[in-house]
């Protein structure tokens, strides 16, 4: 190593052609990583039948694609500039004419504004369809004729699920029906936690003395695993619950499970587990009495869900 080679130090800073190649390759390497990540984001499988994640993924793919094209293009320009315009490759810089490229800059700003406003509008409508939707609107979107209410309580370091109609609080795992809108509220017994089922697109903070409402829906059961109750076995799918807000030393151990069984199985499971399947009509789709419910406004629908949820758990305890 030429530590003592003092005369060389300043001249070494002058890049030659070799360095131009090396450094454009370094920046190209980061571009490869970027493209790899974002292409995979674009071709992410659409989770058909899972809400809200299916709606989010649509939007996410669009964002990945525009970021890939816009961002990638600019990095490519930089890589090219590092290679082509480096001092090892040319003798002098071209002069900048005053006002040079003013038109191009205007076009660029307009393009950014257009992409920005598109993202704003599409993003807003995605939000309106997912996290901002009321359970009634949500039910209409996914075509769920029935809903089930649940309260999720987080604590250091556990999850507790009180499902309407089920007499016992579930802890290690919770069993819920498919084809049903699961309307849930999160709250916390101690510090702030966050109830996250990333594979369903759900993240909802569990905050002491605050109830946050959200909902999800699973269309069908593939039967990848099973749950047992009263000697019976039911085909089920597992969705992982994780805590998404630092809550102390047990944070990374706050892994829970949501098992989804088919609606028919859920009735049997609920009986075997202790309780009943307290599904309610949402007012969407066919069915005699659901038509009557359809007359109510969205707000009333929400209140009803809340009332019956607390009513049944109150009666059971």
């Amino acid at each position, binding site marked *: 190593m030429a530590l003592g080679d003092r005369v060389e130090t300043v001249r070494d800073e002058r890049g030659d052609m070799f360095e131009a190649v090396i450094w454009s390759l370094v920046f190209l390497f980061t571009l490869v*990583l970027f493209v790899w990540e974002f292409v995979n984001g674009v071709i992410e499988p659409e989770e058909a039948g899972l809400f809200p994640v299916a709606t989010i993924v649509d939007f996410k793919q669009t964002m990945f694609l525009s970021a890939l094209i816009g961002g990638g293009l600019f990095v490519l320009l930089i890589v090219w500039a590092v290679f082509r315009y480096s001092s090892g490759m040319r003798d*002098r810089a071209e002069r900048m004419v005053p006002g040079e490229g003013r038109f191009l*800059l205007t076009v660029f700003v307009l393009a950014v504004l257009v992409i920005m406003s598109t993202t704003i509008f599409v993003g807003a409508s995605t*939000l309106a369809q997912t996290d901002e939707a009321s359970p009634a609107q949500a039910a209409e979107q996914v075509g769920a004729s029935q809903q089930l209410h649940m309260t999720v309580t987080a604590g250091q370091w556990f999850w507790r699920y009180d499902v309407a109609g089920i007499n016992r609080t579930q802890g290690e795992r919770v069993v819920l029906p498919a084809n049903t809108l699961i309307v849930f509220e999160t709250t916390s017994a101690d*510090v702030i936690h966050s109830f996250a089922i990333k594979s369903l697109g759900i*993240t909802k903070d569990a905050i002491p003395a605050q109830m946050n409402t959200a909902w999800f829906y699973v269309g069908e059961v593939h039967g990848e695993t099973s749950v047992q109750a009263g000697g019976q076995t039911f085909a089920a799918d597992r969705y992982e619950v*994780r805590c998404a807000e630092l809550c102390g*030393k047990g944070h990374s151990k706050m892994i829970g499970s949501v098992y989804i069984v088919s609606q028919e199985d859920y009735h049997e499971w609920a009986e075997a587990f202790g309780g009943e399947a307290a599904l309610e009509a949402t007012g969407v789709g066919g069915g005699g009495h659901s038509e009557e419910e359809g007359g109510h406004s969205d707000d009333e629908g929400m209140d009803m869900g809340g009332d019956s949820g607390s009513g049944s758990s109150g009666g059971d305890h």
Partner: protein
Amino acid sequence: MSTETADSHDHEEEHGHHGPTGWRYWLYTTDHKVIGIIYLWHALFAFGLGGLAALIFRTDLAAAPDSVYLSLLGYNSLVSIHALTMIFFVILPLQGAFFNYMLPLFLGADEMAWPRMNALGAWGITAGLAILYTPMVGNFLGVTGVPTAAGWFQYPPLNTMMHSIGQDAGIIGVGVFAISSTGSAANFFVTILNERDPDMDWMDLPPFVWFTVFTNILALYSIPWVLDALGMVWLERNLAMSFFTARAGGDPLLYQWIWWTFGHPEVYVLVLPGMGIAAEVISRFSERPIYGYKPLIASVAVVSVASMGVWAHHMYATGLAASRYAFMVFSMLIFLGFGVYIYSMVATMWKGRIHLTTPMLFSIAVVVGLLYSGMDGAFFGQPATDLQLHSTYFVVGHFHFTIVTVGLFGLLAGIYYWYPRMTGRMYNARLAKFHAFTTILGMMGLFFTMSMLGDGTFPGTGGEIMMRRYATFTYAPELLTGHLVATGFAYLAGIGQIVFFINLLWSLRSGEEVSDPWDELLSGQNMPSPEWDGLPYRPPTAIAVSETADGGEDVVSDGTSDETAQVTGGDD
């Protein structure tokens, strides 16, 4: 060290002071250059500490999915310390070093506006750092509990419930530093307002000074909020007041509103100086004027204003309702500002003659890093996608891109660019290139790996997602490969930093003595800079440069500053 002492003694003699000598000299000094050096060493020392912490828990993560060589709480603690060190005690002092040393040179001022306030700012770093790290030493000795372990934004009630002196020390350490930095921010801002050379108009300010203006406006606006938030937690912990405890009538979310009102502008405080340095360096080493000086300044203004209105995008999952639409719109507005910056930098380099010097390499990495950071960041401005990616490693990748590849890389560019100016000696260029290579490759590789672990695109993980701040990942052992790769990149960067420290220290004694290495390197270019060439000065806009050149292409670099200065009239 000896060089600085010599340097500062020179300075002392110039002004004819007969002050104290030895350690008292360093302690009592109000000389902006010496204080700048004090800032610099603090930042580098803290950089070593924070980097070491990162390497330790990265090693832990890569060992096995369930490995906790550190305890679970120890892991949280180390992560928190890493974040607090890097954010408060590395980036802020490092930019403070350049503000202190360079502002008077850039502005043609003798001193900072308030030299004593300046000294207070410097020693506030020492005090804060000492208080933050004392419980760690205590913990190693078995005297105290773990140091602060609730993360860098330390939400209550977790923060108020942790029974450890370390938690209080974390609050007080950051608090002391926040008080001193508020003073410093006011000082930097007032210096630019009042101490400018009379001939230097607002539109004559070099881009770096403009970025400094906005940085310090944001610092003045944001830092008091962190004092509020942490002060209230301290009162709650120690005087049984109740602001955030629901049981006693407090509101846990209140803290988050206050904290992120600080937290988001703070991010721009971290990145803007680096971007300003990158703008200076890119223009100079491309031999081209800054493209679009005025749009560039306007874009920083847009970003700065927008940054004050986006804080709640950190809180999309807390049960916020319709206000999310407004915060989403403001968050998207950031793209406009940073977009113009990126465009301006690319247009400056385009058709230039790029000298791939170490400062230039880091500056190019700033532009590239800003792109990646923005492309990742878009997903967090949008509530819908945020709810899927919130608190995953995608966030971790994103903010590391922002703070390291933009903020820190810009400041590293500044260290190399101004090292000869600050020490009178040239660093070893080969070691510097090695540092640039390992750092750019290592850091970018590391942050991309983190992002991929966070959105499930790392090869072979089957779409599994790594959650932020998880000490173990037993739920998805297939993430181990990703962590191994990440840790590999981290070590690559770590080796680079060791070389960096060796280079700085070695060159201090043995580097080639130079006055202006860049003038020699760039002979023939027509862009003086006030910290090297003195005043008067006009920023190298296309108009200024073409007028100076007076139709000719080649202007001898000697005396260009005077020629530039004589140009009058003409507008951008």
